[in-house]
């Protein structure tokens, strides 16, 4: 079978062997829990608990502030200790609810459904359950899932794509999910398909996970609406626009939504969360986090209570083998570097990566030799070198003219650059400035 792919991309060392054979382990936090009210794109949620309140696991502690926003739930039982700004993975200070975990994990009652309930559930009910559960895109962007699942014309959605690519090096959380709980993923996808009458479901998996492909194919043999598609292993195969193109040959630009191409894309963990919300009435409280890197003693995949500190995860994984030079939340291509591990896991935290060597710090950028490699690998088909030059000269008009806003910040250009130039960084900051200027002009 022809493998689905896109033009450009890179093949970095994937490091997945460190953790791919480690079964998912449950981990119960001991320390204080921190819940930033902004773990998603959109308006920050508003806290609905006060200092001193006692909360249960599964209790809503912050309410979505509008449609494009998301609820936050407590993942432990305990007492609200404070509501104050705390440092998050991006380095920003975000208003957070701090809960003193009593270690008893007393839960609220969930509205569990059986098969008959599910069959009778209306589209509105399904969407409501997803919205109530506070589910956001758990692949990293954190876009509220109920918004994604409410396009203007649901009948024009042809494909519901499950993003099982996991193209980021080192990450194995989706892989473990597919190996251990493939049924959950498929049921989650079926819940989404319920919303779109004309859509087919696509499980898109990279060909470096043949065991997952075989498993998913066997399980969906009798599902006429679901097909498994094999993708070429290449970064960033799981980037939303590239994934849509690889699986459907439809291309959208930065100003369009997947729905414009008749697609809805959700990642593995998100679909599992949807399953939990629709069937079990459970809010989003857990996610799989890969704790890995060559500086970690025992790389693991953990089922983590969202809100627990990264420090605890490192401790659970046996601590450091060697002194890490760099710690990243997420994968090495698009993750955030942490200057300290005392930050909470959030809905979008897919991995914690501790690297013994900071490759970026080791190299000094030198002159561009015009080799064209950045252009060759750019999945957005723009000219990173020219864009970075505009960014460095502050020429934002030309930056936009050269399609700088089409960049998806995947990092391929910086990765390949033989002169070790910080192309992605320059382009990213220019994009931020252009967006900010547009916002200003709009007001």
């Amino acid at each position, binding site marked *: 079978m022809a493998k689905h792919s*896109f*033009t450009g991309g*890179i093949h*970095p*060392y994937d490091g997945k062997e460190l953790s791919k054979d480690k079964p998912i382990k449950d981990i119960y936090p001991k320390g204080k829990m921190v819940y930033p009210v902004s773990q998603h794109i959109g308006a920050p949620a508003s806290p609905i608990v006060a200092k001193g309140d006692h909360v249960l696991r599964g209790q809503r502690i912050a309410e979505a502030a509008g449609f494009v926003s998301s609820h936050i739930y407590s993942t432990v039982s305990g007492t609200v200790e404070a509501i104050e700004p705390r440092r998050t993975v991006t*380095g920003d200070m975000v208003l957070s609810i701090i809960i003193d975990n009593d270690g008893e994990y007393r839960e609220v009652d969930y509205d569990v459904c059986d098969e008959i309930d599910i069959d009778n559930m209306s589209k509105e009910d399904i969407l409501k359950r997803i919205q109530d559960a506070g589910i956001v895109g758990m692949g990293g962007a954190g876009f509220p899932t109920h918004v994604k699942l409410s396009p203007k014309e649901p009948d024009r959605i042809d494909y519901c794509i499950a993003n099982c690519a996991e193209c980021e*090096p080192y990450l194995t959380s989706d892989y473990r999910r597919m190996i251990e709980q493939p049924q959950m993923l498929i049921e989650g996808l079926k819940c989404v398909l319920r919303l779109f009458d004309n859509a087919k479901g696509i499980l898109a998996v990279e060909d470096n996970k043949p065991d997952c492909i075989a498993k998913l194919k066997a399980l969906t043999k009798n599902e006429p609406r679901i097909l498994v598609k094999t993708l070429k292993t290449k970064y960033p195969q799981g980037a939303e*626009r*590239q994934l849509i*193109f690889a699986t459907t040959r439809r*291309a959208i*630009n930065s100003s*369009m939504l997947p729905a414009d191409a008749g697609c809805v894309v959700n990642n593995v963990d998100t679909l599992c969360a949807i399953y939990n919300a629709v069937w079990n009435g459970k809010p989003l409280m857990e996610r799989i986090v890969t704790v890995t890197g060559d500086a970690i003693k025992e790389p693991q995949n953990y089922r983590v209570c969202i809100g627990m500190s990264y420090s605890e995860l490192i401790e659970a994984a046996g601590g450091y083998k060697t002194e*890490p*030079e*760099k*710690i990243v939340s997420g994968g*090495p*291509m*698009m*993750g*955030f*570097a942490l*200057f*300290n591990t005392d930050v909470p896991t959030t809905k979008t935290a897919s991995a914690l*990566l501790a*690297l013994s060597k*900071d*490759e*970026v710090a080791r*190299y000094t950028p*030198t*002159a*561009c*030799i*015009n*080799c*064209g490699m950045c*252009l060759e690998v750019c*999945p*957005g*088909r723009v*000219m990173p*070198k020219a864009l970075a030059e505009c960014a460095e000269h502050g020429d934002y008009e030309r930056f936009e003219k*050269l*399609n700088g806003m*089409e960049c998806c*910040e995947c*990092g*391929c250009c*910086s*990765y*390949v650059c*033989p*002169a*070790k130039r*910080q192309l*992605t*960084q320059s382009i*990213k900051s220019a994009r931020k400035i252009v967006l900010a200027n547009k916002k200003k002009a709009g007001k």
Partner: protein
Amino acid sequence: MSDMMNVSSNPHIRSKVSTDKIMLCVVLALLPAAGFGVWNFGLNALWQILLTIAACVISEALYELFMKKKLTIFDFSAVVTGLLLALNMPPAAPLWLGPMGGVFAIIVVKMLFGGLGQNFMNPALAARCFLLISFPGIMTNFECDAYTGATPLATLKAGGSVNVLNMIIGRTSGTIGETSMIAIVAGACILLLLGIIDLKIPGSYIITFVIFYGLFGGHGFNSYYISAELAGGGLMLGAFFMATDYVTRPVTKLGQIVFGVILGILTGIFRIFGASSEGVSYAIIIGNMLVPLITRFTAPKPFGRGGERI
């Protein structure tokens, strides 16, 4: 915050390919041609090569020292320039000539325009043309101990006959590094296999030249004349090692093919209609000057705006 970790923007990993490694590979790939030149022409060629390289590296270092700039000689780009220039020198040229060209290449063509990556012409070729214009007698005299008489292409143009097999092996007169088609192509294969260059520029260049020569060369598509034209002069060295110079070629795929076609036509014009039997150097530096224009007109379309299927 006692123990702060390194923080930087994504991505946090880098490929192992770096500028100095690329330049070293180019040097390595030029060694067969250089080695053949020394074997073919004798020790004078070796000294010319070594002194020219030394002149390039030292002038770059001194320039940076005087201008209080960061020393960049360890990226080995000056070595590549010196080696390429030396390979374009006549074997019997006096030993001060190569180094003089080297200083011109580095100081005037490269450093004054901003150093590596900023020069708009290939420094080695610009220096060769500078020497050709300034010292035409020495630069076009290919008589040496091993060979007397004109280069094969000049012989051919004058109506004489040549031994094509000798030309392919390289047992003919010419510049130090241009005579052996086999050695040059062997070196080019290293770069092709490593992915440092691809066939877009050399391929379109050579094919265009063959077609142009067949149409306007006066001998039709005669295999004797065509193989002699391909093996003779600087075409192979130019097509694989100088037209493919990263800094002075277009970056876009389409632009590279356009660039190759332009070079093929220019070389054909110079060789057929020009006064000299050679034309590769001039073709490439004229092509170099068209690069910004070519790049501009062949800029890729972004993904989602028509560029996703290329």
